[in-house]
């Protein structure tokens, strides 16, 4: 699907308004009035959070599979991180292998994929070296931290400082399972990411999943850290998350992310398109906020966006 077709779809059937009483002034009352077709045609969605675990014999083939779905929904740019097998606490050899896959994807799809280097701060020296290989000297523009080390651990500080020098965007996975009791041993919460952020004021980071299913607690946890941005992706498309995030954080701190291929682009886009927020806010969330956050790194790399 090209962008024009996608926008026609949005304007006619897919993106519908919600509760009339709660609708901001510029949310259209009917689907046919959803946005301006030219605006939407020029939008192009940026996704802050995808993985390449889709079927395919090579990383490039897996990305091709994923892009077929992304294209049908107008997702233009994809922050790409981690390649299977998924390893909670990867050794340096394992995270280097995963990053090799992402490097191959970025090389093959330079117009679509932004690479995020996967690190495990438990192996700090090797992680810093990998940051140099993939971001300082390579084409990647961000860092992915998963469940190898809790976000408030001191090992993250040298990584954050170097990321700031490189203008790389950090996405830290967070989840709150059963009020935190169900988390993996080293799985971070938004509260722990807020602690890290407080040690690095002014440095923007992305709160991956924003606590997942318990996003209402996650949003509260990052509210007072203006550098932290809420990634909406990865949980069920439950009504209310987008509305609360915009209300509590402001739309400029909210990002569309899918967590594809595990999640569906559709289910995660649906929560933004169906939200009771303004069209202007949807545009920020679907593209402009992420573009703004990545622009320093993209400029440094000479990547046009």
């Amino acid at each position, binding site marked *: 699907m090209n962008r024009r077709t996608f926008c026609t779809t949005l304007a006619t059937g897919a993106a519908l308004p919600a509760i009339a009483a709660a609708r901001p002034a510029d949310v259209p009352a009917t689907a046919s009035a959803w946005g301006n077709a030219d605006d939407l045609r020029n939008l192009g969605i940026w996704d802050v959070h995808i993985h390449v675990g889709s079927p395919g014999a090579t990383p490039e083939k897996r990305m091709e599979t994923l892009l077929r779905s992304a294209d049908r929904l107008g997702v233009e740019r994809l922050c790409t991180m981690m390649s299977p097998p998924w390893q909670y606490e990867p050794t340096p050899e394992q995270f280097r292998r995963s990053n090799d896959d992402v490097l191959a994807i970025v090389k093959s799809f330079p117009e679509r994929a932004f690479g995020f280097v996967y690190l495990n701060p438990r192996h700090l020296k090797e992680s810093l070296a990998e940051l140099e290989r993939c971001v300082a000297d390579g084409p990647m523009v961000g860092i992915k931290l998963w469940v190898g080390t809790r976000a408030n651990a001191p090992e993250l500080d040298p990584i954050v400082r170097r990321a700031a020098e490189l203008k790389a965007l950090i996405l830290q996975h967070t989840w709150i399972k059963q009020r935190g009791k169900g988390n993996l041993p080293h799985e971070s919460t938004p509260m722990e990411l807020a602690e890290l952020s407080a040690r690095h004021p002014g440095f923007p980071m992305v709160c991956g999943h924003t606590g997942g299913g318990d996003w209402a607690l996650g949003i509260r946890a990052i509210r007072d850290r203006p550098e932290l941005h809420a990634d909406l992706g990865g949980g069920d498309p439950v009504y209310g998350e987008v509305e609360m995030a915009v209300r509590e954080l402001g739309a400029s701190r909210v990002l569309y992310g899918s967590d594809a291929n595990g999640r*569906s682009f559709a289910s995660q886009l649906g929560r933004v398109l169906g939200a009771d927020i303004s069209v202007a806010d949807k545009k920020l969330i679907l593209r402009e906020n992420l573009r703004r956050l990545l622009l320093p790194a993209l400029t440094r790399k000479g990547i046009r966006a």
Partner: protein
Amino acid sequence: MDRRSFLTFAAGSAGLAATGGAAAAPAAGDGFVDTNVHLGSWAVRRGWADAPAELAARLRRHGVTAAWTGHFDAVLHSDLGGANARLAAACAGSGGLLVPFGTVNPTFPDWADDLRRCREVHGMPGIRLYPNYHGYGLDDPRFAALLARAAASRLLVQIAVLLEDERSQNPALVAAPVNLAPLPEVLAQTPGARVMLLNSGGRVLNAHTPLLQRLIQAGCGFEIATLEGAGGLGALLQRSPGAKVAFGSHAPWFYFEAALLKLQESELTAAQLAAVRHGHATALLSPA
């Protein structure tokens, strides 16, 4: 679905949105059946439509021609007869859009009369069960008895595998997903039983386990509200072409658009699209 089909459908939705009334309801072939809708509020969070009229109006604007609807009251209330009566009354005011699916708990005394009222008093075409909140497993003889009586009454039985992700449940309201392993055998022993699973994505549809194949062979129906994965619907139908997968949104708990866009995310044939939109639902409700 090819792009043309989707856009034809989408254009129909736009027309509805512009007029916004029941009189503009599309023909059956243009709209679709949403098999997974609830009235009321779930205990821990609001949905996007509180009032039945608002829910119905908004589903109509999306092109929905029938919405199989349960009531959240039925999950935790003990007076299921009252909850079912309220559900029936609320649906009756929807101009035929909301189709009531009452609830029966086979661990309750005289549950059979709740079932009888669903059919004979309220004219419901099916019932919706919440075994994980109602305290029984699918290997419980009382479930088998309920299934047999529902089959005799020609009622479709929907089983809600879960209502919300178990990882995010309030600690005071925890319910593990329903264990479906006994279901194929129970179905094999119950001639005429028709069963559809709601919210089975994470446990069954996404997992591609042998259990899924056994459920398909047993004639179970499914819906897509919790089906995940990029291009997940197309992938499911490719690896399990015999699966009876209907449209379901889990509205208003989930955003309706999340399910709607799944029809666009995968490249489906016109026949597959029609089956998901209304074909499988129609067949489940009115078997040949």
